[in-house]
């Protein structure tokens, strides 16, 4: 006797993501090891940034000890060539670095969303012109542009954020535009237009929610890019050298010849923090990719008795 039919036989119709599949994304992420590791690292650094003034009170740049001391019980990460506490500098550095990265990444993504949606929805002239602008900003190499912008604008955190946004928005705009285009061609968008919904409404309520995972991916990418670009800018001395951030820590490390004096403890921590934060975000991004695109998931090994496996056939 046959088993009851378990498949649904309805014809394929255009579907929109329901609330259920968005929580499916959440569920997928919570069970994904990479996502959890990435999230844990991020939480650690955010806490470090928030608690720095409590854990290391006072001005971290003040000279507090003998210069260039190796890590010891008193100063866990040693001291700089000027005699500053490296651990305090690193902890406080998290505040500006994360803040700038987050803001720049967020604003870049928002601009990218606006440009991408407008481009995809309105099409024609608006699309052509926005695309040309986007492509130009994608093409012009980032670091030289950053340098030029930062050199001519007044130094400060605001400038850093501003120039990061200018060099960062185009990447997200391009990705989100192509995603928005493919959603725009779906039937439910046409249905909305026919019922007379306003353009803004359609873009925000019909197209955008279906791009949620792409938006998350681009947001993470933008933040990673902002943190890295910020570090590069500050290392060249174009950030605000008066503030304490991971990048400026490395700038001073380079300036004071930490390498040549063998003071590895001065340049290791700040760079490692940047790397770990970027890595955590990348892990999370990787995990989002895997959860939303089942094909990318790690293939579980099949039991040897299963007769069908591409890998076996391919041998």
């Amino acid at each position, binding site marked *: 006797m046959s088993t009851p*039919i378990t498949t649904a*036989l309805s*014809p394929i119709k255009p579907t929109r993501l329901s609330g259920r599949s968005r929580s499916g994304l959440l569920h997928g992420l919570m069970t994904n090891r990479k996502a959890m590791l990435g999230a844990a690292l991020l939480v650690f650094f955010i806490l470090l940034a928030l608690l720095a003034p409590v854990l290391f009170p006072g001005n971290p740049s003040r000279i507090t000890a003998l210069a260039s001391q190796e890590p010891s019980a008193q100063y866990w990460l040693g001291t700089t060539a000027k005699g500053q506490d490296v651990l305090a500098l690193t902890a406080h550095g998290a505040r500006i670095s994360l803040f700038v990265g987050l803001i720049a990444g967020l604003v870049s993504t928002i601009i990218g969303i606006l440009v991408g949606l407008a481009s995809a929805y309105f099409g024609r002239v608006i699309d052509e012109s926005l695309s040309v602008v986007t492509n130009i900003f994608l093409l012009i190499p980032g670091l030289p542009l950053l340098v030029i912008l930062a050199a001519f604008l007044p130094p400060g955190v605001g400038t850093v954020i501003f120039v990061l946004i200018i060099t960062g928005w185009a990447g997200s705009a391009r990705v989100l535009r192509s995603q928005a285009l493919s959603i725009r061609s779906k039937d439910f968008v046409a249905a909305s237009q026919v019922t007379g919904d306003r353009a803004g409404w359609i873009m925000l309520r019909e197209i955008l929610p279906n791009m949620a995972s792409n938006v998350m991916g681009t947001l993470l990418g933008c933040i990673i890019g902002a943190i890295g670009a910020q570090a590069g800018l500050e290392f060249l001395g174009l950030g605000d050298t008066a503030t304490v951030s991971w990048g400026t820590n490395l700038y001073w490390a380079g300036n004071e010849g930490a390498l040549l004096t063998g003071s590895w403890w001065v340049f290791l921590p700040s760079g490692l923090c940047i790397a770990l934060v970027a890595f955590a975000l990348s892990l999370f991004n990787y995990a989002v990719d895997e959860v939303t695109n089942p094909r990318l998931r790690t293939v579980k090994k099949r039991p040897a008795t299963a*007769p069908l496996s591409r890998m076996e*056939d391919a041998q």
Partner: protein
Amino acid sequence: MSSDRLLEIDNLTVQYRGDVRTTTAVDHVSFGISPGEIFGLAGESGCGKSTIANTILRLLKYPAEVASGTIRFDGRDVLALNGEELRQFRWREVAMVFQSAMNSLNPVITIGEQMRDIFTAHLDLTRRAADARCAELLELVQIDRNRLKAFPHQLSGGMRQRVVIAMAVALRPRMLILDEPTTALDVVVQQEIMAEIKALQAELGFSVLFITHDMSLMVELSHQMAVMYAGRIVEQGPAATLHRQPAHAYTRALMNAFPPITGPRVPLRGLGEGVRLTRVGDLQPVGHNHWSAAVSHEDRERLTPHAAGSEGGPR
């Protein structure tokens, strides 16, 4: 089951294993094809026909797997073939014409090179000898041999399909699987292609497993036929018999879904709006070489009010 059958499928079950649930695409299906016979497999989208075709050539990919049953080709156990044996079995013994020729041809290399691949992979011919054979093949389907240098996108839809058919018969396989070979083409080209296939079959004598949802085409071409529903066979027998005296309600609905162009106007009869069969029983003999699946009690009740004629197609 007689041993002179070329293809013997016995109690085949194929499932797709997901994270949340498992879907049975092919549910305890058995049938056989004799040498030189044209066997039609009909049914709506999603009923499992293509899955069977892919299983015969062992093309199923994760997460699909054969849960039970056997497939024997000329006495050999197809499901047990691996590696080099499988590679040689493919295309030499059984070849397939896929649904969309545009998608099944490699877009960046020429038609000629793709045809040559067949010969170099199986027959170890020199390039010149292979090219000569390719030119012959193209002539077989009435395409000028200069087209060997063309890329797929440079050919018309009908030409592409003929190229794919030519490729399929390149090694003179004993069985050809046609998976919706003309669905992507317009009616005029469809007729040419079907005539082509008929001529080739008469000349080369291969068996055919003909998969389609176009009943009129199938009835015209096939010797034997089987109708599938949700992974199960609901009726099987000579094509003419199924056409004139369908025994199962579903077969009747399928036949009635194609209105005749001539004759008096009659209301279209199908299964009725939203009617689905929940239990498809095993095949019972209802005539010479003619089987039909038992209809369960609940299904019979569900079907009865609609059997007396109503609006709407099979859905």
